[in-house]
């Protein structure tokens, strides 16, 4: 018997035997199965405690915290607001640029710093490249979850090309420490714009190829359509964001709806799930939203590269950042996973008084029990995969 100590206190298990209408007694026992913490389909160290009735999932309780290192406590012990940025990198390590940007945005708005236009363009280019890189991981590993290995290799080849661009700019491939309060650490190196343009031209047909290989593959569609349906009202009630929310048909994207930076200058469209092969909000919808967002990101990058202005890459920022006492700001950006927010509170000293990180993966994961009840065990792998969690951010 697996210990069920960690089940919710109000959980009621089914009786061991039930009597049918004809008076026969049938043994019927629910079983508790642990999926993880070392299970390939959980994409990291996550334990899903599932209560199963045969092959049907009765309840699913995620247990998180295996990677917890109390990032928020760390921030209170920094000697400078800028020092927090490398720590934010390590939250959502698949999308470090947007983490840095959200935090920098919160501090910049607190200090009322206007960053140079060139910085805004560079940040947009980098964040959208990062979005593509992150979605490539999501899509590639989702292929593996559904039993298709090849798309994973193709998507990682393309992701490498993006990481090369990052490496060229700031020397790091994953954890960049690139977006700083008031600017970015390095200007774009010579040849970056040409290389990025080259990548855009190269990558467009690759999306079509990935779609042919995976998205419209008969087996993949059969496995993901109508599975893990997240209804619109549940998605909003659980504050899901990013492809999770848009996959359920809610047209909400912070790049447009809580405008920041220079996104309003570009032509692009938020993508929503339409239930093309099944129901709105199923796993396939979340997948297709990611695929289409990559195209939109290419559009944004193309326009940003064309309009890239000259100028400084660092605004005038005091050496010691000291926002006014009692100042607070909740800054947020649209990361590849959704709304990534930092609630920063100042007491007038040189280190933040409090930083709360609102990670989209943490919030999106909390809806998993809602969408996996009644599903088959085999489908749980696909449902959990479609949430696209990064445990570094869930656990912080």
């Amino acid at each position, binding site marked *: 018997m697996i210990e069920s100590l960690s089940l*919710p206190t109000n959980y009621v298990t089914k009786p061991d035997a039930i009597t049918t209408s004809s008076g026969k007694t049938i043994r019927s026992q629910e079983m508790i199965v642990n999926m993880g913490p070392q299970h390939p389909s959980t994409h990291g160290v996550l334990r899903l405690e599932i209560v199963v009735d045969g092959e049907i999932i009765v309840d699913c309780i995620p247990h998180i*915290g295996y990677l917890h290192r109390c990032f928020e406590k760390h921030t209170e012990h920094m000697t400078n607001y800028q020092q927090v940025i490398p720590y934010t990198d390590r939250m959502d390590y698949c999308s470090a640029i947007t983490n840095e940007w959200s935090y920098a945005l919160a501090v910049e708005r607190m200090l009322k710093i206007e960053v140079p236009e060139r910085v805004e363009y560079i940040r947009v280019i980098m964040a959208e490249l990062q979005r593509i890189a992150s979605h490539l991981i999501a899509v590639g590993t989702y292929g593996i979850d559904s039993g298709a290995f090849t798309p994973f290799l193709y998507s990682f080849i393309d992701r490498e090309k993006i990481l090369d661009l990052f490496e060229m700019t700031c020397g790091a491939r994953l954890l960049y420490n690139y977006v700083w309060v008031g600017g970015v650490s390095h200007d774009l190196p010579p040849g970056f714009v040409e290389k990025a343009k080259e990548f855009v031209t190269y990558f467009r047909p690759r999306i079509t190829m990935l779609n042919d290989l995976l998205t419209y593959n008969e087996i993949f569609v059969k496995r993901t359509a109508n599975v893990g349906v997240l209804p619109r009202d549940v998605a909003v009630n659980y*504050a899901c964001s990013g492809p999770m929310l848009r996959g359920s048909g809610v047209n909400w994207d912070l790049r447009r709806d809580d405008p920041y930076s220079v996104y309003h200058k570009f032509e692009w469209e938020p993508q929503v799930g339409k239930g093309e092969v099944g129901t709105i909000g199923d796993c396939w919808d979340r997948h297709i939203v990611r695929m289409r967002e990559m195209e939109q990101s290419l559009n944004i990058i193309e326009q940003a590269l064309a309009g890239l202005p000259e100028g400084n890459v660092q605004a005038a920022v005091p050496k010691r950042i000291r926002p006014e006492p009692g100042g607070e700001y909740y800054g947020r950006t649209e990361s590849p996973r959704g709304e990534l927010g930092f*609630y920063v509170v100042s007491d007038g000293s040189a280190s933040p008084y409090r930083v709360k990180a609102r990670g989209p993966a943490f919030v999106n994961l909390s809806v998993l029990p809602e969408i996996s009840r009644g599903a088959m065990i085999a489908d749980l792998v696909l449902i959990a995969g479609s949430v696209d969690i990064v445990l570094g951010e869930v656990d912080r």
Partner: protein
Amino acid sequence: MTAQEIIDSLTARFGDAIVESKPDAMQPWIRIAPDRIQEVGRFLHDDLALRMDYLSSLSGMDYNNGQLGVVYHLQSLVHKHRIVLKVSVPKEQAHVPTVSGVWGTANWHEREAFDLFGIVFDGHPDPRRILLPDDWEGHPLRKDYQVQEFYHGMKVPY
């Protein structure tokens, strides 16, 4: 709706439950009496003119003056307006009614605030720790937190 209109509409309906408000802050906020947070939340969520259907974030706070607090960042996806709610409670009596019945997302956020600040959310459907082990001692984000010497025989401070 502007922040002032939201504050006016809440004041008209709840009056004494509104302790303090700051409509001219960068992100306007309202301080609510802790025991009224559920009905205020329900009203904000359900009222058709307000329709605060999206709880962006819920953060615990330690104000280091004997008070703990909870900060709710609310957003309306329909009307695109925002407001911040705050409550504060004394450290020894840190009880706040849960709002997980209004916004489902509050469930995990409140567990986190309980885990790291020791704020007890009355009526919470699943009041367990979330990030730390169930048998951890103390609440790390409190300003007066002292880390325990040993955890299951392992030395903790490094």
